């Protein structure tokens, strides 16, 4: 459950003579794998994630999720947006249980789980707060909580910590590592931050721009469980040096 397969997937905007955003994407992601899409802005990494989320249609090639083509968004593919995209008129609690509610699930099925998840993300005392009363990091915790409450088979995260300050970003990365260590859900994580990609992912797909292609797959064999302390470890630094030289090579090649 939670397997992803892209087979020569392309995405063109604006008809036949439009802009080629993604070209010949081949990508297989196994169950429970944490994959980071790393690349400069405009390289199509968010587009790739939007295809899988079902927000946009594939122009060519075949994209499968758990063996079936994706036709529309759905709760088995939980999306965490960059700016959280919470509904501002709903309280933290109402945002978190929005999914189960619109799916018509009985309260007994989701309330306990929602409470647990709010506690895990550290917001149990902010149930009744409105998103506007929260800091950026807290809003993103709600954005993660409302997705986890639906037990998705894959987490699609679109630069979820990109808009946060450095300190908050670290604490959110730690939170994500801890949550993933427990749930072992498949994760596709879009970022332009090399450190973040190494810290979180089992595998990094380095993308090049115009048209968006996957230039390089890099396995990160850093031992798990990981923590933000690893960021300063010698093993991490070795990985980073290797990846940066590989990125330079592949990007130079791509240009």
């Amino acid at each position, binding site marked *: 459950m939670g397997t992803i397969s892209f087979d020569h997937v392309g995405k063109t905007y604006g008809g036949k003579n439009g802009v080629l955003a993604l070209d010949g994407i081949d990508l297989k992601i196994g169950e429970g794998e944490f994959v980071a899409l790393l690349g400069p802005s405009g390289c199509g990494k968010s587009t790739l994630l939007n295809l899988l989320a079902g927000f946009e249609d594939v122009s060519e090639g075949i994209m499968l999720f758990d063996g079936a083509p994706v036709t529309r*968004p759905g709760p088995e593919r939980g999306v965490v947006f960059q700016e959280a995209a919470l*509904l*501002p008129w709903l309280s933290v609690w109402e945002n978190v249980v929005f999914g189960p509610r619109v799916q018509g699930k009985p309260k007994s099925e989701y309330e*306990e*789980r929602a409470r647990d998840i709010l506690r895990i993300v550290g917001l149990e005392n902010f149930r009744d707060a409105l998103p506007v009363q929260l800091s950026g990091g807290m809003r993103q915790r709600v954005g993660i909580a409302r997705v986890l409450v639906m037990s998705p088979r894959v987490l699609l995260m679109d630069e979820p910590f990109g808009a946060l300050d450095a300190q908050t970003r670290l*604490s959110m990365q730690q939170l994500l590592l801890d*949550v993933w260590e*427990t749930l072992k859900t498949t994760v596709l994580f879009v970022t332009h931050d090399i450190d973040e990609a190494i810290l979180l992912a089992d595998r990094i797909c380095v993308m090049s721009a115009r048209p968006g292609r996957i230039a390089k797959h890099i396995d990160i064999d850093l031992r798990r469980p990981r923590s933000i302390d690893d960021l300063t470890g010698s093993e991490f630094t070795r990985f980073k040096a290797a990846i940066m030289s590989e990125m330079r090579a592949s990007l130079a090649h791509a240009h």
Partner: protein
Amino acid sequence: MTATDRVTVKTSAPAERPSLFAGLGERLSGANPARKVLGLILPIALVAIWQLAGTNGSLFGGALPTPDRVWSAWVLWAFGTPTLGLNPYIGTWYDNVVFSTIRVAKGFALAIALGVPIGIMIGWSRLMAAFVDPTIQWLRPVPITAWLPISIAIFGIRDFGSVFLITLGAFYPIVINATQGARDVERNWIRAAQMMGASKTDILLRVVFPAALPSIFTGLRVGLGIGWTAVIVSEMVAVKSGLGYVLWDAYYVGRMDIVIADMVSIGLLGFISDRLIVFVESWLLGWRRMQSFNN
């Protein structure tokens, strides 16, 4: 794992410090009493000049009675005991206020019932926009006053002719603002709802409608203002009761004191009804007010 499984995660992630309510209190108490007094100076001065400029209780050769005359006329109109005599301006104020208010309430309610759903559908669905929007845009430039003859021809000198004009006048700003509100909904709110399994109906009712509410309220306030205009115009011509009817009738018999008392009454009703909408708005849209404070 199923939805009922309990989840426990040990995390060493440090908690953040929340910025809850920071500075909100001071900002809310921003209503400065000194500034409110400032706003009273001009109207008091104007009324005083109006009073002092009059000779024998009027200006412009009797066309404009002074405030004291208007006041005593209003007191009699509002609180006098109706007599069997021919003076219709004793003790009939309240009834006429009620007539006009009920017409506005009916017409306005009808305009909301039509304008909000139609506007949201136009803003939400390109098909609806292509189907309905051109008709609305072609009809809109026709002023509601131009609809008077046909309204009387169809509905006669009856209540509904007046209600029809109010509905028509209030409908345009409501439908246009609801359309705009539904069009401007943030894309990621809709995507997030879709991702969480919301149906089209859920998205309309739980995302598009609340997101469009601030814009809808703008339309309601403009629409209500037009509603009061429409009730006065229509009562002058199309019915035989209400503040608009009294306004024209009093002018015909030369009772300018009643004309002015009537004008002030209309202004007050318009003001109070607008405050009511603002009150409902601030009650429903607390999230929005806090948002504008924080940004």
